[in-house]
């Protein structure tokens, strides 16, 4: 394949993958929802879980996006400096969204700000959004692609605490978001928390936290402890599926952290809904790929 063909081939692969994971949830999410479904006891929770599972069956059978809100597509790319198509990746990502929008189909979710019109293309100024992490001396690409609907985007909050507030202040902040905005964000939720210096450093970490597979833990022992404690606490609030009460509130709580300025604690919360449409795909230098998030996927 020459370079043009390579670019085209990778664009097609990503387009197909985006369309696919808008219809089929990742393996870890499906397994967790099965688990949570069994724990719930009330007829209301059972009705809601039955409806959710029926919907996922229909989405796969009818080949349609399982939720109508297919988000503003976000890419989280860990790219090797020697990945052969590094110069073309921005265009490949954008074109894969354009293509998937027609073929999946996806909803037109890019409204130009200030001029306030829907582009009708599902891409616009600075969308899809791309978060880059450079991996020196690597020739590979590992990318998470995410469809967050408006519902689970709305609870997003960030602020800078004074150190006197401590990690107790972090927990207070997270729990506040859960009771005020959690019920409307389509629980059971995946909760991403960023702890750093400022709003933007914490915010990007809180979103990257949502890209971690379920069951993973923060490598720092204390941060991992806080993940477990927050999971217990939020579960005990008992949001249940759709915020209509139940035994559990979350699929997980993930914390990502960075060192902080001595005078500040930046904290941010992002939530992922039960329909957590995240796709993880890894490309080698010859563009062969592995779909990590969906073992049974065939594009």
């Amino acid at each position: 394949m020459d370079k043009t063909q390579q670019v085209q081939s990778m664009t097609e692969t990503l387009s197909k993958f985006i369309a696919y994971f808008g219809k089929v949830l990742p393996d870890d999410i499906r397994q967790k929802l099965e688990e949570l479904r069994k724990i719930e006891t009330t007829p209301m929770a059972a009705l809601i879980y039955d409806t959710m599972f029926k919907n996922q069956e229909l989405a796969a059978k009818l080949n349609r996006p399982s939720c109508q809100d297919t988000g503003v597509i976000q890419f989280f790319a860990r790219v090797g400096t020697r990945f052969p198509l590094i110069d073309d990746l921005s265009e490949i990502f954008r074109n894969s969204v354009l293509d998937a929008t027609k073929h999946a189909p996806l909803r037109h979710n890019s409204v130009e700000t200030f001029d306030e019109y829907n582009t009708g293309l599902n891409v616009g100024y600075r969308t899809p959004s791309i978060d880059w992490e450079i991996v020196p001396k690597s020739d590979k690409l590992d990318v998470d692609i995410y469809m967050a609907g408006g519902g689970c985007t709305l609870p997003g909050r960030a602020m800078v605490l004074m150190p006197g507030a401590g990690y107790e202040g972090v927990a207070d902040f997270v729990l506040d978001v859960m009771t005020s905005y959690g019920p409307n964000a389509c629980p059971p939720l995946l909760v991403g928390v960023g702890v750093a210096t400022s709003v933007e450093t914490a915010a990007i970490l809180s979103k990257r936290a949502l890209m971690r597979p379920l069951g993973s833990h923060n490598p720092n022992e204390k941060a991992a402890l806080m993940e477990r404690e927050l999971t217990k606490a939020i579960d005990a609030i008992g949001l249940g599926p759709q915020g209509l009460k139940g035994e559990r509130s979350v699929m997980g709580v993930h914390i990502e952290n960075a060192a902080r300025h001595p005078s500040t604690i930046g904290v941010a919360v992002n939530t992922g809904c039960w329909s957590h449409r995240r796709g993880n795909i890894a490309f080698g230098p010859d563009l062969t790929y592995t779909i990590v998030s969906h073992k049974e996927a065939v594009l």
Partner: protein
Amino acid sequence: MKKILNTPVSDSDLQDIRIGDVIYLNGHIVTCRDVAHRRLIEYGRELPVDVRGGAIFHAGPIVRKLEDGKYEMVSIGPTTSMRMEKFEKEFIRETGVKVIVGKGGMASKTVEGCREYKAIHCVFPAGCAVLAATEVEEIERVEWTDLGMPEALWLSRIKEFGPLIVSIDVHGGNLFEQNKIDFNKRREEEFTKICEHIRFIK
């Protein structure tokens, strides 16, 4: 047995419905969300679809245009109703709508509107957009297409549309607000407990 409402809905149809009930809807429903509410309430533009006695759906669907010029409902699930709280009481008064379907709770102004003008708010389980689409028999009309696919008014004929969980009734009940009292109480207890474990700054 399924409790099924038919549009047009009358005040008396809603009298015995309480929060937490599960109902289904036959007849028509039109999508109506942020900008459509703003146009009616803030700019005084008349809604191009008459919803008196009818139902609106806080939703922005994925729709496919077919070769014969008709539209196919691909995927349609509810969007966050709270965004319409600012407008909903006046919306109910102006339009005479009886059933509002969306996601999550709404607040005190909508509760007032539902009580004074006799209407209910229901939740369609969110994220279940293909199920909802299969309960749409046909898209009969579309208006305000200048707003783009999610915001346009899509008028659909529906059959046993649901399950719809009643979250606000005509008697002043509000399921989500009621639940929030419990959530907040437990939140305080849990906060006290968690603080014991996370005093990392020493």
